[in-house]
């Protein structure tokens, strides 16, 4: 039989434990020998076997049984300190001890196997449940916009609609198509970020530029909000993955725009604090209740109601990105008015690189 290297130390330790426990109970028996009858001593040694069987696999438990019978014979059955047996009645005691030891060992081992199987089945069921939840939510999220697209296209094909309805249909197709695209991008992004070998493409960036390109990318999504930016002038070059940090910011700002009323403002602040680059997005929406503040960053979590459609991934992606940078994300209530402040911080490590000199003409 080949024993796998990784298993060997575990097995050895189990057998050692069995030996030590039997030795301890034997020692206890020797100590209490004058106070106890033979039957009590055999029960004491059997207790040791039960403990071994409870803690260790079947093999060590059987070894403990054999050791206990041997120890009982050697220490407690005359002639003492030999394995000879003068009174054959003791053979019955030995057989009973061995039988009980074996029975207890195999019973506990079987029980443990069953428990382990039940635990595994339970885990599998839970994973299955999560997967089904995700599948049904993704399937629903794909079907709904596809339904609108196919519905609108067939209506256009059918032809019997007026000009206004036609424009509506076309806008529906466009918006739903874009929605599907966003969903796909988010799903892919999340899968890539959850992958183990995800590598950051870190470089020196000007945070102001990240804000500009994030706002440019959000475009239409910000049509109904006033966006103010305030960047601490001490913020210079910082090192991070520009594409990903921009995406994290896009997701926070997009989230703020989705969940705050039209014609309110969104404030983006960047500052250096305690060797960290801190990005904050403050909105004038309803805020996030205390008990939801952790959950909003979980995959596929959606806040209650409001009828806004999202992938449930935006904030989870932001969190994954920031944590990949060794940073942290949070959401707080605003201090100056109602609203939420979503923020993240990434550590500022190395000092900024040199710039080539230039004589100003």
């Amino acid at each position, binding site marked *: 039989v080949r024993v796998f290297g990784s298993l060997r130390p575990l097995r050895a330790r189990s057998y050692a434990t069995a030996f030590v426990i039997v030795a301890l109970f034997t020692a206890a028996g020797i100590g209490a020998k004058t106070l106890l009858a033979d039957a009590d001593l055999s029960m004491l040694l059997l207790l040791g076997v039960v403990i071994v069987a409870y803690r260790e696999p079947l093999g060590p438990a059987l070894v403990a049984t054999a050791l206990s019978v041997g120890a009982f014979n050697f220490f407690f059955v005359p002639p003492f300190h030999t394995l000879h047996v003068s009174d054959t009645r003791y053979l019955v005691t030995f057989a009973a001890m061995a039988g009980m030891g074996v029975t207890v060992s195999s019973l506990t081992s079987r029980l443990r196997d069953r428990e382990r199987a039940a635990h595994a089945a339970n885990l599998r069921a839970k994973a299955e449940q999560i997967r089904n939840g995700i599948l049904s939510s993704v399937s629903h999220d794909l079907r709904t916009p596809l339904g609108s697209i196919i519905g609108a296209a067939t209506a256009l094909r059918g032809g019997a609609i007026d000009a206004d309805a036609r424009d509506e249909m076309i806008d529906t197709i466009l918006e739903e*198509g874009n929605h599907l*695209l966003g969903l796909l*991008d988010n799903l892919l992004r999340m899968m890539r970020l959850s992958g183990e070998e995800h590598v950051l*493409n870190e*470089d*020196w*960036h*000007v945070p*102001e*530029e990240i*804000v*500009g*390109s994030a*706002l*440019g*990318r959000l475009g239409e999504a910000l049509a109904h909000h006033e*966006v103010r*930016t305030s*960047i601490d002038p001490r913020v210079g*070059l910082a090192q991070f993955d*520009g*594409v990903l940090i*921009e995406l994290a910011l896009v997701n926070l700002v997009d989230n703020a725009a989705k969940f705050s009323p039209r014609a309110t403002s969104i404030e*983006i602040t960047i500052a250096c604090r305690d060797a960290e680059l801190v990005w904050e997005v403050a909105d004038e929406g309803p805020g996030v209740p205390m008990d939801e503040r952790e959950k909003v960053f979980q995959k596929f979590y959606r806040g209650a109601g409001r009828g806004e459609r999202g992938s449930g991934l935006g904030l989870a992606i932001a969190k994954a990105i920031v944590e990949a940078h060794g940073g942290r994300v949070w959401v707080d209530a605003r201090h100056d008015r109602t609203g939420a402040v979503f923020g993240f911080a990434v550590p500022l490590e190395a000092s900024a*690189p040199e*710039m*080539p000199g*230039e*004589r*100003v*003409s």
Partner: protein
Amino acid sequence: MIGEEQTPSVLLIEDDHQMLRFLKALLRSSEYRLRCEATGEAGIAAAAAMRPDIVLLDLGLPDIDGHLVVERLRAWSLAPVIVISAREGDDDKVGALDRGADDYLTKPFSSTELLARVRVALRHARQRATGAQSPVFESGDLRVDLARHEALRAGVKIQLTPVEFRVLAALVREAGRVLTHRQILREVWGPGSVEQTHYVRVYMGHLRRKLERDPARPQHLLTEPGVGYRLQ
């Protein structure tokens, strides 16, 4: 050579049937002359035979990689190449642009956007061919005159350092097109500095502060994340 009166010819190298169907309908109704090929080799052969005014190229072709098609076309043709691809990795974009593609669109894209990019590329090609490069860029309240070496915002002359002006000039010469970090670095700082992307980022920051109304929401000096810059 494109005459003003002649409708430009487009070579479309794309293998996806539905995409072809859509692009054909779009380009024909915009009155371009059109030829379609479904493989890289056939596309290169067609380019040699018809000398198209512009090439639209899908990167994921069944026979050879689109990047290779760009490289082989660039070896002898000046026709602008616009890459249209479902690959969204920044490396793919930068790779195609650095090999000489003129522009890059990721699927899905809006048809308005595609037609606008085609027009910009054709205009650049025409200017290159006639040598009549317009030395003046004008958009909104921004005006850059390369010949007079000046930049104006809302009619007011803006002081730029020599390097700032060279970065701006590189973008003006290719206005509307995306330039990779590497292309700007090579042109302004020389081939030894092509890895120093932060030079460009810092100078773009300076230019935005001087030329944009709100440097955090630029209207002209646009960032293409992970790829480079575009002047608009």
